[in-house]
C-alpha cells in the first residue's frame, strides 16, 4: 500500500481491517490521497467524518472510540476550565466531570447539533455551577490584602527566573491579569461565561448562544453588558 493511502487509513482508524464494522463513510477520504495526513493533522473535513464515526462507535459502547473522541477536544476544554476557575485542581475536576457526563450520556446525542457544541454545553454548565458556588462562598475565602486595602495574589510575589524573561513587563502583565480577574468577579455568572467564551476563546456569539441554549441576540446583549461593567470596574487603568 503506498504511504499516502496508508496514512489516510491511519487518520481515519483501523476500520478497513475490521470485519465487524458496517460503516463505510471513510471510503470518501480513502479515494482522495490528498486528504491523507499523519494522525493528529487531520483536515477539517476528515475531522468531521472522523468524529461522526467515533461518536457512533462510542454509542455502541466502544470505550476506545470515546477516548479518541475525548483527545480531539480535551485540550480546549481544559484550557477553558483552567482559565475560568483559575485553579489547576478545579480545572481537573471540571474536566473529569464533563467527560464522564459525556460518556454516560453519549447515547442521548442525536446529532441535532455538532459534538463540539454539545461538549462545550456540558463544560459550560459545569463552569456556571462553579461560578455560582464561588459567588456564595466569596466571603469565606481567605485573601491577602495589601496596605491600601486592595487584594493581591501571593503568587505574584514569586520572581520569574526563566532566562530571557523581562521582569518589569511580566510584573505589569501579572498585575493587569489580577486587576482584570477582580473586575471579572463582578460580572454575573452568565455575563462572565459569555465574555470568557468570546474574549478568551474566540468563539462566535452565534456559537455562544447555541452553547448557552439562548439566542445570538441575547448573547450580544450579554456581551455588551459585560464589557460595560468591565470598563466601569477598570476605569482607572491606563
Amino acid at each position, binding site marked *: 500500500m*503506498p504511504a499516502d493511502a496508508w496514512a489516510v487509513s*491511519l487518520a481515519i482508524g*483501523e476500520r478497513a481491517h475490521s470485519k465487524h464494522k458496517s460503516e463505510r463513510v471513510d471510503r470518501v477520504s480513502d479515494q482522495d490521497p490528498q486528504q491523507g495526513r499523519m494522525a493528529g493533522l487531520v483536515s477539517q473535513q476528515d475531522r468531521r467524518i472522523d468524529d461522526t464515526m467515533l461518536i457512533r462507535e462510542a454509542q455502541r459502547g466502544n470505550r476506545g472510540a470515546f477516548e479518541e473522541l475525548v*483527545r480531539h477536544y480535551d485540550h480546549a476544554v*481544559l484550557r477553558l476550565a483552567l482559565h475560568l476557575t483559575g485553579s489547576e485542581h478545579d480545572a481537573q475536576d471540571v474536566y473529569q466531570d464533563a*467527560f*464522564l457526563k459525556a460518556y454516560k450520556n453519549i447515547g442521548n446525542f442525536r446529532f441535532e447539533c455538532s459534538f463540539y457544541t454539545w461538549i462545550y454545553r456540558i463544560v459550560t454548565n459545569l463552569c456556571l455551577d462553579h461560578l455560582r458556588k464561588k459567588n456564595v462562598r466569596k466571603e469565606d475565602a481567605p485573601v491577602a490584602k495589601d496596605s491600601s486595602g486592595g487584594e493581591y495574589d501571593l503568587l505574584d510575589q514569586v520572581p520569574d527566573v526563566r532566562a530571557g524573561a523581562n521582569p518589569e513587563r511580566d510584573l505589569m502583565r501579572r498585575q493587569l491579569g489580577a486587576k482584570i480577574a477582580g473586575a471579572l468577579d463582578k460580572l454575573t455568572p452568565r455575563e462572565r461565561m459569555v465574555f470568557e467564551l468570546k474574549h478568551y476563546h474566540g468563539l*462566535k456569539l452565534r456559537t455562544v448562544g447555541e452553547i448557552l441554549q439562548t439566542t445570538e441576540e441575547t448573547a450580544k446583549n450579554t456581551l455588551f453588558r459585560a464589557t460595560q461593567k468591565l470598563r466601569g470596574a477598570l476605569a482607572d487603568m491606563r
Partner: protein
Amino acid sequence: MKCEWIRESIVLHVYGELADDARHELEQHVSRCADCAAELKAEQDFHAVLMQDRAADPTPNLLASSRMRLQEALETAQQGAWWHRLAFEPANWLRQVRFSPALASAILILGFAGGIGTSYKFLGPRTTSTTVTDQHPAQALNDASITGIESVTQQPGTNQISIKYNTVSTEEAQGPLNDQRIQQLLLYAARNNYNSGVRMDSVGLMTQNPSDTHFRDALMYALQYDSNPGVRFKALDALGPYVKADTRVRDSLLQALVNDSNPGVRTEALRMLEPVKADGSVRGVLMTLSAKDSSQYIRSQARTLLAQLPEID
C-alpha cells in the same frame, strides 16, 4: 436614538461580530458624529488593554494527568443503558415543563415508562452466582445471552481454561483453548469486560494461539482500543511474531507506534517492526518519526533503524 444603537454596536464591532451592513452604517455614523467617534476610540483602546490578558495553555503535565484520571474513571463508569433513557431526571423535565405545557402529558406517560423501565435494572447480573458446569458442550453460546464475564482462569499445569460468565445467573464453562465456547467467551471478555484484569487474562490466553484469525482480530482490536496499557502491551507482544506474515498486523503495529498514548507500548511497537523496516510504508513512518516525534528515544531509534537500510535511488 441612533447613537444608543451605535454604542451597543461598537462593542460588537470591536469583536468582529457586526454584520456587514450594520458595520457600514456604523462607519457612516461615526464619520459624522464626534461623540460616537470618541466612544469608538475609547472602546478600541480598552479592548487593546484587555487583549494583553490571555488564557494560559494547560501544562502538558496537567493534560496528561487529567487524561489518566479520566481513563481510570472510565474503567468503572457504566454507560447509560437503554433503560436509563426511560428513567427521567426530575429537574430537567420540570424546567422544560415550565416553558412548554404540552410536555405535561408527555411526562405522565414517560413517568409510567420510567417506572417500568427502572424495574429492569434489578434483574441485572447481580443475582447470586451459582457455578453450574455446562451441560451442553455441543451448543454454541448466544452472544446476546451473555451479560458479563466474571473471571477467566487457566488451571495450572493443564490446558483447561475456566471462565465464569453471567447470563441471568452465573455459569462456568471449562475446556481447552480450542473449545469453541471457550474461544467465544474469551473474545467477548477481551472486548466487553469493565475489569482490566479480566481483559488482560483473556488476552493473555489468546496469546497462546495468535494464529487463530478470530484471536488475532481480537488482539489487534485490544492493541488499538483497550484503555489499559498493560493489556495493549500483552496484545502487542503476541502479535509481534506475525508482523512479517500478515500486513494487517504490520499496519496495526504502525498504528500503535504512531498513536498510542503510552511510551512503553510505542517503544515496543517500534522494536517489533524491525523485521519489516524495509517496507515502504514502515520506512515512511520511520522518516516522519525520526524528524518530528516528541520523544527523543523514539526519534533516535527510528534514525538508527533507517540508517541500517540500504539507500533507494
